[in-house]
């Protein structure tokens, strides 16, 4: 078992932890990020709705809430951040549909509140909300249910790929000097007078500051240090991705009063989702979808966009929204030093966590300084990353060029998403070690056949590139091997 020392330990490699690590890498500091899984962004980040810059349309948020202020502050940070990291971000805008006369009052109230908050809590660059009438709605979105009377339009809403963003944040942090330790799970934390000793499955880590960005497990980690001065209230949401052939039928994110929404993804699919509002999870860390939620989400989505059919679902999953501080308000977050343990900082964003991440990361710098950490600028900080080539997006001429340079780009492995061997090898070079790691970097298996065709082929490439046997290849680390035995192995064992 190894023993290392670091000044700041970030626990959790989701978007929160990765954004904090990258922000810290702008300074000269000895910091380490630990992630229990084999890859970053594979917890609740993976399950998020991909909607960015949410905030101006959720004005039910209150300025009193720290969470709301973070979300609003994050709104203008996302676009430049994505540019630096070469992650596509698309402003699609959202349309909150209005069903009846009673709901007509809602856009007015929201627009008024927007004006009131603008410049104060909402940055000046944020575009104002608008009301659009029935005819405009129909011309913008001819496939939305014709019965809606109009919509509240928020032009700021954008989509991107939060897992790719998290991977890029972690890569950039690593490049700028932050240590990133994968497969490293925190087992216990003991408090000394001026340092913590964190025991992991890979040895112990001594550190002066802990940033608890463990997402869904933020409570568990805080408890280890008796720093759990908050109450968790996790709720489940449900999302389903639809076949790309439906991609173009909706242009904006459309949502209704009933917690349902339909939106395009950055990759050209449509997806729909539902949040069950205040319905508490049955069991902690239960990631399973259930039929009731799935049926309700589908019904809701069909109400918004009648052209959606169950037949076109290619995948569905549970998203987590971790609400906390129930007594104060549903949307309040836990970002700050534990009231009970100095230098132990909880950084749990809750909903909508992706949007707030850059603002949380910025705030973390002030919190650390307040806790006594000396932070001087890192003169060598390089903010840029280059995303990997996406063969399917290249022009015919670019396709020719890249194949001429590396013939592996001429070998299409995933037919649904047109992913080449060249991209898969590049993804592995960039750190993918599991089938999911490859899938979330370059999409083989994300299409309509869900890896039925390319699964065996990606397995082979992973085994070859990593120098392991095909049986050792896992879906997502741990016990998730795909192939448990060799042919004839069971027969030989029976003899």
């Amino acid at each position: 078992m190894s023993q290392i020392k670091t000044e700041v330990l970030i626990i959790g490699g989701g978007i929160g932890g990765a954004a904090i690590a990258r922000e810290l890498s702008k300074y000269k500091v000895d910091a380490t990020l630990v992630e229990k899984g084999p890859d970053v962004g594979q917890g609740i980040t993976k399950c998020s709705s991909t909607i960015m810059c949410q905030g101006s349309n959720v004005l039910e948020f209150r300025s009193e809430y720290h969470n709301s202020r973070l979300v609003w502050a994050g709104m203008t940070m996302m676009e430049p951040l994505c540019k630096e990291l070469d992650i596509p971000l698309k402003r699609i805008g959202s349309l909150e549909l209005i069903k009846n006369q009673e709901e007509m009052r809602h856009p007015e109230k929201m627009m008024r509140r927007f004006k009131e908050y603008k410049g104060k809590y909402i940055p000046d660059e944020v575009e104002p909300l608008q009301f659009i009438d029935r005819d405009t709605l129909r011309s913008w979105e001819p496939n939305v249910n014709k019965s809606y009377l109009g919509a509240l339009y928020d032009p700021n809403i954008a989509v991107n790929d939060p897992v790719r963003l998290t991977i890029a944040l972690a890569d950039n942090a690593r490049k700028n000097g932050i240590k990133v330790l994968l497969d490293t799970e925190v087992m216990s934390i003991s408090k000394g007078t001026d340092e913590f000793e964190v025991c992991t499955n890979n040895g112990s880590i001594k550190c002066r500051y802990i940033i608890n960005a463990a997402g869904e497990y933020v409570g568990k980690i805080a408890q280890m240090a008796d720093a759990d001065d908050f109450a968790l209230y996790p709720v489940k949401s449900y999302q389903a991705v639809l076949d790309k052939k439906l991609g173009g039928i909706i242009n904006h994110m459309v949502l209704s009063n009933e917690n349902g929404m339909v939106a395009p993804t950055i990759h050209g699919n449509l997806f729909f989702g539902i949040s069950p509002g205040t319905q508490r999870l049955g069991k902690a860390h239960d990631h399973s979808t259930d039929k009731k939620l799935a049926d309700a989400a589908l019904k809701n989505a069909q109400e918004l966009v009648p052209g959606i059919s169950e037949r076109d679902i290619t995948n569905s999953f549970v998203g987590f929204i971790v609400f906390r501080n129930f007594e104060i308000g549903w949307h309040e977050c836990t970002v700050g030093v534990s009231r009970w343990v100095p230098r132990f900082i909880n950084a749990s964003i809750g909903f909508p966590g992706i949007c707030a991440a850059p603002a949380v990361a910025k705030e973390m710098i002030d919190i650390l300084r307040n806790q006594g950490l000396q932070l001087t600028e890192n003169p060598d900080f390089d903010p840029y990353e280059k995303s990997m080539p996406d063969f399917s997006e290249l022009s015919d001429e670019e396709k020719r060029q890249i194949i001429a340079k590396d013939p592996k780009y001429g070998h299409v492995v995933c037919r649904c998403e047109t992913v080449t061997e060249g991209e898969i090898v590049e993804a592995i070079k960039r750190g993918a070690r599991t089938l999911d790691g490859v899938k979330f970097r370059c999409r083989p298996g994300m299409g309509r056949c869900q890896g039925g065709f390319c699964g065996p082929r990606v397995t082979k490439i992973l085994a070859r590139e990593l120098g392991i046997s095909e049986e050792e290849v896992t879906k997502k680390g741990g016990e998730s091997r795909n192939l448990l035995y060799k042919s004839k192995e069971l027969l030989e064992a029976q003899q």
Partner: protein
Amino acid sequence: MKLQDIDVAVIGAGPAGMAAAIRAREAGAENVIIMERAEELGGLLHQCVHNGFGLLYFNEDLTGPEYGNRFIEKVMDTGVKPLLETMVVKLTEDRQIGAVNAKEGFITFRPKSVVLAMGCRERSRGALNIPGSRPSGVLTAGTAQRFVNVEGFLPGKRIVILGSGDIGMIMARRLTLEGAKVEAVVEILPYIGGLIRNEVQCLHDFDIPLYLQHTVTQIHGEERVTAVTIAKVDADRNPVPGTQRKIQCDSLLLSAGLIPENELSLMAGIRLDPVTGGAVVDETRQTNIAGVFAGGNVLHVHDLVDNVSWESELAGESAAKFAMERDLGEKGTINLKAGTNIRYIVPQTISGQRDTTLYMRVNEPQENVRIKIGDIMTKTVRAVKPSEMIKIELSSEKLQKVNKETKEIIVSCEKRGGK
């Protein structure tokens, strides 16, 4: 052969593509190419190591690879040019093809005619929308078949199979022979999805339990499948409360339907039949785009490879004729419409001028029926099942009853003697 001079380009080198390409050559087309994304010709036949292939076509009982090899040899003998490890990524409405491979890079060309033979894919877990966690160990029966028969690995040793399609039942037997225990085959319908011969030879002969009118209601396990919950379903296919039962297993195989692979067809603007999921064609197997033909599972899912070969030969022959003569004569103007207990008919339109074979499926199993092709002809059949395709030959003499005014012929399946 220069890309500019290609007469017939066949997309896909499974049984359909090979049969189409061979026949196109035999029918006189000079330059025929077959484009295949895999490393070799034959498609999925390589992983179908069981027998039962060719009973009709060759009057012999062959394995998949044996059946495939006969066509592979013929592809070579007839001078069809295979382009392997070549993926067609683009098809336009004026028959422009864009394809990539490692050797030539990105190539584009416009053949005189095209045969679509891309086959089909399996319905995935996502498409089935099965509730539960997302562990490894959930895979389609065909993927499992490739792992076991081609790659040399077993997904696990305690298996549950959802759906009773042919590949699922065949894999139940295959995995049993490999020493795994198949705990259950679970089918939501009151009857099996595949052929009766597979139910007998793959399930009954190996004492594998079959649960009809049951479904998987939950998948358990965080990293790897640990169990599934199954339940009985009611007439509306909803789980009946109180009938849930947890089965310990390490793998869940899915064999619950096949979907024709028509993404290229959609790109080209080819009109699809919402029931078959394949192109709408006339008796020459021409789609709504002149010079683009389709045959085999890309057109509609077959249960016997023999029919795939025959149908694709027809598509290949038409493609050759189109390439040489630019015209196929009378177009399909008469619509064949599915009536009582008929799910679909292929071709969807006919000209009424040629001998033709109608392929069709029923919605529900039924005994002692009469299949009526409008008032042209009737055929009595002892039993029909959705899983078994019905073939009816329609001779041009019978079609003389059809006149220029006929716009539609209703095909129906009715109980014999009274109702």
